[in-house]
């Protein structure tokens, strides 16, 4: 079931949250929407869910215009960042609330609740209340509640943001696995660029209510459409310097090089001084002061460089990105 947004605008008084978004999520695709806070990504999700009325534009699910339909008639299921589990209901109550309202047969619902909670490792927890569950368990209850709906589109609003780092990595893999198994069209909103890159079949970068670029993760990483995307994706972010400086390029441009595309080379044309050595185990990130700027350089593990040491760098010319200094657009 495809999901399409056509010219979607949303403003709250004078504040524009979405400034004309056109977006299509293909049948069975998982599209990750990523952007800094305040970029409008949550609004985007709420507009699709029907929790916020549109100012302008249309939302289509499977070709059907759902713009004016109430949330439960859109056949979407949402997983909220704080899970929004009903605190006065047991896990069983939380899961069967929707089916009960939709007047689905009780015995059938009970069976589905049992089966699904077994699959998600919640079998022994059905009679517990949400405040008796760990964060990871709550997240799986929220997921199960959405799955019981058997929706045509899943909407994930930062479903991993409330988990601690270790759990988040595991849950991220679970979501990818789950999506592969279910094959349901999914819109996954996150502020974490690494999460977007790992879960998304494609990634949409949003800033100030406008789409900056939509494409497969690697494409966005290798060919960012503008300097915002270049800076936003990747950690540490891309080195961006005014053209005509140490990274070359013409005046009136911004020249970008990713930390891994700067190589240490005794014969390299760029000379600088190592300021900080960040040893991350599997890799080392050097901050190198060159003229008035600092460049991040990614090298292998156990780098021998020490702060104060002078090094020389070389840029792979094929991996140099040039952006317009005023519009930020890729040249």
């Amino acid at each position, binding site marked *: 079931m495809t999901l399409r947004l056509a010219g979607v605008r949303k403003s709250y008084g004078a504040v524009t949250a979405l400034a004309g978004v056109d977006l299509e999520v293909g049948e069975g695709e998982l599209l990750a929407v990523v952007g800094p806070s305040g970029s409008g990504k949550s609004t985007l999700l*709420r507009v699709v*869910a*029907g*929790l916020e009325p549109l100012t302008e534009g249309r939302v289509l699910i499977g070709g059907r215009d759902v713009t004016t339909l*109430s*949330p*439960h008639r859109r056949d*979407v*299921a*949402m997983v*909220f960042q*704080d899970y*929004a*589990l*009903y*605190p*006065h209901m047991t896990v069983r109550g939380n899961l069967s*609330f*929707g089916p009960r*309202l*939709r007047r689905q047969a009780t015995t059938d619902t009970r069976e589905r609740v049992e089966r699904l909670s077994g699959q998600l490792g919640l079998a022994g927890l059905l009679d517990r*209340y949400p405040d008796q569950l760990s964060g990871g368990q709550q997240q799986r209850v929220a997921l199960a*509640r959405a799955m019981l*709906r058997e929706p045509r589109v899943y909407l994930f609003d930062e479903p991993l943001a409330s988990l601690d780092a270790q759990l988040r990595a595991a849950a991220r893999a679970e979501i990818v696995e789950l999506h592969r198994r279910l094959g349901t069209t999914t819109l996954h909103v996150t502020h974490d660029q690494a999460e977007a890159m790992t879960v998304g079949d494609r990634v949409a970068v949003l800033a100030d209510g406008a789409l900056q670029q939509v494409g497969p993760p690697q494409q966005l990483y290798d060919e960012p459409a503008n300097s915002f995307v270049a800076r936003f994706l990747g950690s540490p972010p891309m080195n961006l310097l005014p053209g005509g400086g140490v990274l070359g390029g013409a005046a009136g441009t911004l020249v970008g090089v990713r930390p891994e595309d700067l190589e240490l080379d005794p014969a390299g044309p760029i000379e600088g001084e190592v300021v900080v050595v960040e040893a991350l185990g599997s890799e080392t990130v050097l901050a190198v002061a060159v003229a008035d700027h600092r460049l991040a350089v990614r090298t292998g593990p156990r780098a021998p460089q020490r702060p104060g040491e002078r090094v020389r760098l070389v840029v792979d010319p094929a991996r140099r990105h040039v952006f317009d200094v005023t519009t930020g657009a890729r040249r």
Partner: protein
Amino acid sequence: MTRAGASAPATVRPALGFLLPYAVGTLLLVVVPALLTFRYALTDYTGVGEPRYTGLDNVRRLGQDPFLRAALTASALHVVIAVPLRLLAATTLGLMLAAPRPGGRWYRAAVYLPTVVPDIALALLFLWVLNPLFGPLNGLLGALGLPQPAWLATTWGARLGVVLMLLLPIGEAFLVVLATRRQVNARLYEAAALDGAAPWQQLRHITLPLLAPVLVLLAVRDTVLTLQVNFVPAYVLTDGGPANATLYLPIYIYDQAFEFAAFGYGALLTAVLLLLTLLAVGLQLALVRRWRIVR
């Protein structure tokens, strides 16, 4: 000091210091008078002179007192009618006015305002409001072509008149409901909307269950208040009449203790009121447990 007290964390000791003024106040203003009341309950004390211990004479008098039966009936009817209606009014208004909207603060202020009006002023106001001949209430009812009861002159008219008056000072319960409703995570309503819950289903399945603990608390508190603290308005409005229809226990106790110089008997009636209040509250809490209103 108990062993648990001895091993209590160092923060407990200063806390005890802060609690001391309240402990002294409770002791002097509640515990001592209560003990004195229980002692006077078995005497023929009139308010002056020396009380004389009369054994169970006062208790025997309870059984033969026709006014006591009237007072119990009046109080019971009053609680059964007034508490649910006051709670309903406070809850309805609290839920309706909880959402922030333009001008909302004026409506909220309007609901709270009667609560700051002194009891006596409210009662005097209602003497006028309920006046069958020139009161505005009957004027309104007449204009709508509805029957115009002789409010304070008939038994049920008087009972309902007092309840009507007490439907205005509900500001505290209103505020508690309002604050509790605002604490509820808005995402729950969005999740419920996605689950397909219509507004009344959201009220039934989300709002009311989450409000339940607070509503129980308010019901208990209002029962105590309605049984015991409605003295001033009722005294001014009806003074127990007509035909003892509004002879609530506090009024009857006042009559016995200070009008009929039966202070000892009044003290015993006070103990009866205390017992009845405990019973009413106990019954409510038993129902709460039985019906699993609170998790």
